[in-house]
């Protein structure tokens, strides 16, 4: 995009002043270079979000923003229920509560290197990944509802993990306010045999090494040190979340019309928070958040089982678990006071700063761990929430690299085998059921995650703590 289209608030803040039906400004956080490379659609979509009823402060976009559905991916927007504010299924996304979880291992590269191939094979065979894969857990209707209400707490109660894990998950592993009865039978059917599965697309499980530490003291508080091996898991609420997205998008198209809400794009379909459809969606979405938390918890259990067999002295406590497709009720500063608002983060990570009461004791002084997944075979980052992020973007930061080219282009440009070989030559082992899937996820099909993270750090959204690089990647 042309930087001249914006009013530049600061080196890293680009404002679109309200125009036409926009109720508030739209603000993109990015370096000038990222703005130049960003899709024009982000401008259009962020401006469209700013027209929705009850939006407060501004429609924000993170440095990794790209063309999404209605909302840009990398979008953050908060709505006041007392001012006619809305909730939007598209503003959360199809993959509700998609997120990233990081596990310590207590190992160094020298421990893993001799068994890397064995570890890769075992992870690939024990963690179901890819289209059509199923888990071994079958949920009857009663257990399905218990899972949707209980999230990771439910999983831990069933033996998939330990109670200490829960402290290290947003909402302490269980999103309250879930309403399983607002989740359709189709959505439940799609989930029946998908618990503990990774999915496909950009979802992965990686064994990574901490290759750089930027902030020693925060890294220490997070338990990260140069050379540490960690496990990073990226996946979401599987078929259940996808079906809830589909079901409510459709209902919200009709509901928005019923309330006289003018939609510049059908995909922005929404319902007032204080309406039956709005309340039902929130209940169903919270159930899907629990599904995602339970899913990542079960995968964690599977990963621990693999390590117990191959590297029995390893311990895999949880560093943290973040979700980057959510809508949550949170207190934020609005018009000089503090209000409870519904914050949509679609492809954006919550990034609470130091002192936030929702943070576990261990992170109270340094801020929330913000886990940023890079593209396959490149790098990932751990950041920390800042105090400033509250005033900038409701305590939010970026979530990943963002695609630089479509799957379609990537599949034409690369062959999966060639990518596997190139990465193997650099010491990265890839395992996947699909070579075409690998080509579509080629490292160069994504933007440089470092540029995105540098911009988030420089803008003050989150602070850079450590960089991680993969040794093993299981791709769905």
């Amino acid at each position, binding site marked *: 995009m042309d930087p001249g289209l914006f009013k530049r608030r600061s080196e890293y803040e680009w404002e679109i002043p309200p125009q036409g039906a926009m109720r508030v400004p739209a603000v993109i956080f990015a370096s000038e270079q990222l703005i130049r490379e960003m899709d024009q659609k982000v401008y259009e979509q962020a401006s469209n979000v700013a027209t929705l009823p009850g939006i407060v402060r501004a429609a924000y976009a993170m440095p990794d923003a790209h063309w999404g559905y209605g909302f840009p991916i990398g979008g953050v927007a908060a709505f006041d229920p007392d001012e006619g504010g809305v909730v939007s299924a598209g503003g959360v996304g199809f993959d509700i509560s998609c997120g990233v979880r990081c596990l310590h291992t207590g190992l160094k590269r020298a421990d893993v290197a001799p068994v890397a191939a064995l570890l890769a094979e075992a992870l690939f065979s024990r963690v179901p990944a890819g289209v059509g894969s199923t888990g071994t857990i079958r949920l009857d209707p009663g257990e399905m509802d218990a899972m949707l209400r209980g999230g990771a707490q439910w999983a831990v109660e069933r033996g998939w993990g330990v109670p200490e894990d829960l402290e290290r998950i947003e909402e302490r592993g269980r999103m309250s306010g879930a309403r399983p009865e607002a989740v359709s039978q189709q959505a439940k*059917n799609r989930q029946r045999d998908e618990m503990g599965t990774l999915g496909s697309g950009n979802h992965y499980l990686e064994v990574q090494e901490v290759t750089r530490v930027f902030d020693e003291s925060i890294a220490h508080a997070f338990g990260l040190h140069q050379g540490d091996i960690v496990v990073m898991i990226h996946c979401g609420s599987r078929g259940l979340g996808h079906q809830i997205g589909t079901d409510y998008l459709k209902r919200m*198209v009709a509901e928005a019309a019923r309330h006289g809400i003018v939609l510049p794009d059908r995909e922005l379909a929404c319902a007032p928070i204080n309406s039956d459809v709005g309340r039902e969606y929130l209940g169903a979405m919270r159930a899907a958040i629990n599904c995602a938390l339970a899913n990542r918890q079960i995968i964690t259990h599977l990963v621990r089982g693999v390590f117990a067999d191959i590297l029995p002295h390893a311990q895999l406590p949880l560093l943290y678990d973040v979700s980057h497709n959510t809508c949550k009720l949170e207190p934020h500063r609005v018009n000089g006071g503090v209000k409870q608002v519904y914050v949509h983060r679609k492809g954006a990570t919550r990034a609470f700063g130091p002192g936030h009461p929702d943070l576990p004791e261990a992170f109270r002084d340094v801020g929330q761990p913000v886990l940023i997944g890079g593209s396959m075979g490149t790098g990932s980052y751990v950041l920390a929430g800042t105090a400033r992020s509250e005033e900038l973007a409701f305590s939010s930061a970026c979530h990943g690299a963002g695609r630089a080219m479509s799957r379609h282009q990537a599949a034409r440009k690369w062959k999966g085998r060639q990518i596997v070989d190139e990465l193997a030559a650099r010491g990265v082992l890839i395992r996947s059921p*699909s070579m075409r899937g690998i080509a579509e996820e080629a490292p160069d099909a994504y933007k440089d995650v470092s540029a995105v993270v540098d911009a988030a750090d420089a803008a003050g959204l989150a602070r850079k703590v450590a960089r991680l690089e993969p040794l093993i990647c299981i791709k769905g």
Partner: protein
Amino acid sequence: MNARWEHFSHEADMGVRGVGATLSEAFEQAALAMTGAVTDPQSVEPREEVAIECEAPDRELLLVEWLNALVYEMAVRKMLFSRFEVQLDGNRLHGRAWGERVEPARHHPAVEVKGATYTALRVAEEGGEWIAQTVVDV
């Protein structure tokens, strides 16, 4: 004029487009394009038949309904489809899809389709052919 399908670029996901002499044919081809997002449709044997019924207030929303009904069947039956038959009766659709259970070793499925969206959604007659397209979230 040949019935055909193609993909178009969307930054994060994939656009599916069906083109045909009739609206029904365009819907059938759009479904084939969606299978094409997952695997090569020619690798899928049309062994088993699944019936699909749906309706919507207009034909664009009907395209999304049709594709989402297929996404659902693919997900719960763990199937891929390679042959489709669509009959339209106003805004009601009677469809049949033929396919088989997904076999990763043979189909190498690249992605799972999460759902059909309303992005770049268009159903229209253009230059004597029908076009039915939208973006699917993968």
